[in-house]
């Protein structure tokens, strides 16, 4: 939760202030420090992985293929660095 500068016509409204522990929790949740890592496995097909990267992560075909090959050759690929909420969405 961020405290935005109040326009004058809202001056009468008290902006909520987060408690220190909750603020730390919220800051951590919204910090883009969560890596989304895709691991290799012997069953998922390359074409399917590329398709998912394009449709879920919005990659171009070239970028999707690059990350798919990284998964295939190196065992894993970091495909996104996001807020915790978005990273969990990608996981779903």
């Amino acid at each position: 939760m961020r405290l935005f500068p109040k326009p004058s016509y809202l001056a009468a409204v008290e902006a909520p202030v987060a408690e220190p522990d909750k603020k730390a929790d919220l800051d951590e949740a919204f910090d883009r420090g969560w890596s989304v890592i895709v691991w290799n496995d012997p069953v998922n097909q390359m074409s399917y992985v590329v398709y998912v990267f394009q449709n879920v992560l919005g990659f171009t075909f070239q970028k999707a293929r690059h990350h798919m090959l990284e998964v295939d050759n190196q065992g894993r690929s970091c495909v996104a660095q996001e807020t915790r909420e978005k990273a969990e969405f990608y996981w779903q």
Partner: protein
Amino acid sequence: MQVNKQLDHLEIILFEPEVLLLRQALQQISANYKVSPDDLPDEVKELWYATNQASSDDLPEDDIEFVHEQLAEFKGENAKLAESILEILSQRMEMPIVVTLSLRDADNFLTIVNDQRLYLAAVNGIGEYEMSESWEELPPSPKKMAVMHIHFLAWMVELLVSNLGDSPRG
């Protein structure tokens, strides 16, 4: 099997052996989709819900539980789609059978087919070796049958992906 993309839908044309295999796959997956994550075999739970991986990351328990609930709900919706396609496959007697799906449903169907591949691999202990070219050397067994089913479904995934590849989701 053929897949034809039209403007706003996909046509999946299936001949008898394919109908039989797909029917079996859909019966199995729609039943498993309705099973609560906690009641699934561990290996399936791990593949579908990444339970071990999630618990080893620093994700809060509540978040993990929420994602699992969302995933289970999504799979529940996909169970309904699987059943609607099963109904088509069961009611029509003349071959080939044409299954028509909206692009959104076709995308979800792709997920269903892939989930079934993962399920078969998990419960039959199918890994790198079984998925390699050496699978034909496996002795006749439920495992070998499962590998054949996985490869049949892989063919279907390839056809779907090649037709959906440039379609927007939803």
